[in-house]
């Protein structure tokens, strides 16, 4: 074993692998994949600069997926001995047999070369889960105290989530991988109750969660002191801002908000298992059905969206996926046309698409891998393309939206509604204060069809989330989305107070 295995080598990994894979083969499985994982998750939650709760959790276990007589079976356990490995093979084969009784299509996987024995480690300097609790608390305490000292701020909540994920994978094709990646999500929210003359308001940091180490808090990728310094005045301004007039507006959307719209309206819609109906009972299906591949006009010609599991600091980035497929980068939407889907090996084979593009992922050793989202990103304009300020200058009457807040989209990914942290009024190319109570609502293809301008590379930012949900039993995946600032013409803005009948 290698040094970066996070202590996995304290367990009899090789013996467990032999026991599990050999037993599966003995039982007649055409394929078996074993994952042994250790996931360390730490949370610090603070309220008004005092610790409210902490989590420090080390999840350790293994899962075995088999294909037996064309049926899939899965079993997982937290017991880690060779005997448990054998038992797991028996359980997984039992699950394949039991569910095959109800009938099922035969499962085959797309070809993937054996990658032999390989290691992969993400780019980071300091594994955030090695930082002592007292240091993490001190950091959030200092930032919270600064915010609380502002007169506009009545209360502050702060959270820091740190994850370190060690994954060992071995399959019957001879691929054995050992991988390590980390991620970090700091978030602070200030609350102003005001003088009671109007309802309270909040202002949260727009700093994205990232696949970086603890150095992120010291300026690698985000300027926290600068953002925190602005929060109180932004909050105070918002408290005294007018309620938005509903109607159609031209929008300049910042990457800190647009990433989530990409996630919901492009990311999930281009998952082929969804488009084929495999999520019909839960996450839903997709308007971007398979017959529309190569034909569907998704958006304006400016729209170039890629999927990748390779972006440096990407939350969905890996060396190899949970079916032993090497990480790749691929087109989903090119010149505004749907040209690709996110795949796992089963779906790639079923639809005759050749090799899987490596999107299989399980969020826990106890969950079966399913197709999960790659980093799905909107490509920016050229290096000397417009800055955000340039984009705003081109708008006569519109709104500039920063930071994500509320989100919801329908089960075929048509109708969505998003709010944000900061809605700035644009008048004659200039920012003219903030607006309250705004939400934007649109249909996916109308919205992307209204894309009129892309910011240049200087506006590009990788944002994302730790908590993308899919599958039953529910699985939660981390994923990043890169995008530039962008202009959308004539989008419907709602007033949420009016929506509530007030």
């Amino acid at each position, binding site marked *: 074993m290698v040094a970066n295995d996070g202590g996995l080598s304290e367990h009899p990994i090789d013996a467990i692998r032999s026991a599990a894979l050999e037993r599966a083969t003995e039982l007649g499985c055409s394929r078996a994949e074993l994952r042994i994982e250790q996931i360390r998750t730490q*949370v610090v939650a603070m309220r008004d600069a005092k610790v409210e709760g902490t989590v420090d959790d*080390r999840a350790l276990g293994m899962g075995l997926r088999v294909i037996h007589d064309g049926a899939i079976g899965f079993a997982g356990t937290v017991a880690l001995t060779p005997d448990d490995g054998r*038992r797991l093979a028996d359980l997984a084969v039992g699950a394949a047999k039991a569910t095959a009784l109800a009938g099922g299509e035969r499962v085959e996987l797309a070809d993937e070369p054996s990658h032999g024995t390989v290691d992969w480690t993400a780019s980071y300097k300091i594994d955030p889960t090695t930082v002592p*609790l007292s240091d993490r608390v001190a950091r959030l305490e200092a930032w919270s105290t600064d915010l609380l000292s502002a007169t506009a701020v009545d209360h502050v909540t702060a959270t820091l989530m740190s994850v370190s994920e060690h994954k060992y994978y071995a399959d019957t094709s001879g691929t054995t991988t050992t991988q390590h990646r980390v991620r970090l999500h700091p978030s602070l929210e200030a609350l102003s109750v005001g003088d009671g003359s109007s309802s309270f308001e909040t202002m949260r940091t727009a700093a994205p969660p990232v696949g970086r180490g603890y150095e992120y808090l010291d300026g690698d990728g985000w300027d926290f002191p600068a953002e925190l310094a602005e929060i109180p005045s932004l909050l105070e301004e918002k408290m005294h801002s007018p309620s938005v007039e509903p109607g159609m507006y031209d929008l300049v959307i910042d990457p800190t908000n647009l990433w989530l719209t990409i996630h919901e309206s492009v990311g999930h819609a281009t998952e082929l298992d969804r488009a084929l109906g495999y999520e*019909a*009972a839960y996450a839903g299906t997709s308007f971007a059905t398979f017959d529309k591949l190569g034909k569907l006009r998704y958006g304006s010609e400016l729209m170039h969206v890629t999927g990748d599991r390779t972006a440096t600091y990407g939350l969905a980035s890996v060396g190899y996926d949970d079916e032993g497929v090497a990480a790749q980068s691929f087109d989903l939407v090119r010149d505004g046309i749907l040209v690709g889907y996110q795949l796992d090996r089963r779906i790639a084979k079923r639809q005759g698409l050749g090799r899987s593009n490596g999107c299989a992922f399980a969020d826990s050793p106890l969950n079966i891998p399913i197709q999960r989202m790659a980093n799905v990103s909107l490509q920016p304009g050229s290096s000397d393309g417009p800055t955000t300020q340039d984009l705003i200058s081109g708008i006569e009457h519109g709104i500039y939206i920063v930071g994500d807040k509320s989100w919801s*989209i*329908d089960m075929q990914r048509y109708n969505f*509604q998003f709010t944000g942290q900061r809605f700035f009024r644009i008048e004659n190319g200039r920012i003219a204060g903030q607006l309250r109570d705004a939400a934007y609502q649109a249909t996916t293809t109308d919205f992307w069809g209204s894309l009129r301008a892309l910011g240049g590379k200087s506006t590009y930012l990788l944002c994302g989330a730790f908590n993308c949900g899919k599958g039953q039993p529910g699985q939660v995946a981390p994923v990043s989305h890169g995008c530039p600032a962008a202009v959308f013409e004539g989008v419907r803005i709602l007033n949420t107070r009016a929506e509530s*009948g007030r």
Partner: protein
Amino acid sequence: MSESGLPNADEVVERALSASRADGCVVIVEDVADANVRFANNTTTTNGVRRDRRITVVAIYGKGEEARAGVFSVSGSTDPGEIVAAAELDAKSSSVAEDASPLEEAGVDADFADQPGSTDLSVFSPVLTDLGPAFSRALADGRVLSGFAIHEVRTTYLGTSTGTRRRHVQPTGSIELVERSADGSASTWAGVGTSDFADVSLAAMDERLIGRLGWAKRKIELDAGRYEVIMPPDAVADLVLEIDFAASGREAEDGGSVFSAPEGRTRIGERLTELPFDLFGDPFAPGLESAPFVVASSSGPDSSVFDNGLPIDKVTWLKDGTLSRLRYHRAGARRSKTGFTPSPDNLVLSLHGADRGLDELVANTERGLLLTCLWYIREVDRSNLLLTGLTRDGVYLVENGEVVGAVNNFRFNESPLDLLAKTTEVGRTERALSREWHEWANRTAMPALRVADFNMSSVSPAS
């Protein structure tokens, strides 16, 4: 060793407690067995049998309200001493906990040393037996079935250095079935919460949904607007659970909640609905039984690791339409001079004397929309608990007491508190499954509701 290859849970608790060098210690072992099967496109797809065990140790230094705590948890069969040491390390470097309270002696369960409950795929045998023929029939009739069944048995062992030894076995199950027409233009859903699947018939669910798909033979397009809606208990659960989620005393006092009143006060005592609704959680509610003691593996705004093992009683959130309680841990309750209010893991909405079924509400309708369930529900405005989301898998137009056809889906913007305030008719309370939240909140009982002026904000072309 038990059959699973894991040591006995009660012994893990004892070993961890004896390894403790701190002034106080709480050990929680949560042993989970589950089995699940998923299906889609008239075929079974994924499945799993899982065995999980998480050991959480809370180390406490100092006494009473001056105590410091550290929390560490590990899944698997790690040496309990290691977990205790890690928790003690964190506790030593911590400040006095905001939620510090004395650890209590909270009783000993006679079955503490019993083996954990278990389950496996055999619990689904009748379901799987019915599923094959249901797939064949669906294929022949041009319908597409998908769905999911899961059964989990969670056994919690909780011990403290003050002598508490509690054990609780929590079975949680659900099955969902979606039927779509082959062209995808019509769909419908049914979901059932259960503890053991003895009360589940997939064949009966299939029959019911075939009937509902028949309602979609006539399709009616309606515009966005405010409609009278008839919400079945499942859809009521989707929205009303959000009232429970928002019922934090601390957050209300901070001023950033729908239950906030000016100057750090809460809305307790305020009448919120004209109809005298009761909304409550009760660990002993028949069929919805949940743990009768606190199990907190971390602290939050209104739950505390110091309260582990203390009894949970029935909590009435709304009494006769008036807000009567919010959630508080002991330390928060002391500060706010109110009662310690831990939350039961279930939720019941009822109106005294309401005994009509959903069919009777439909029969009483001149013109309205009958919903099936709601989806992708998110908070839009915390100050009034405005939620957005979608109708899903079946919106039907009712005219003169009869369903006359299926209507397009809508995006709604509504607050569950406004919803209860706008309710004009209430049905009898029955077991309900929130499609949106049942993974976290399986045990609910709700009435069907007739609601005036429900805000369908825009049309969704999704089906």
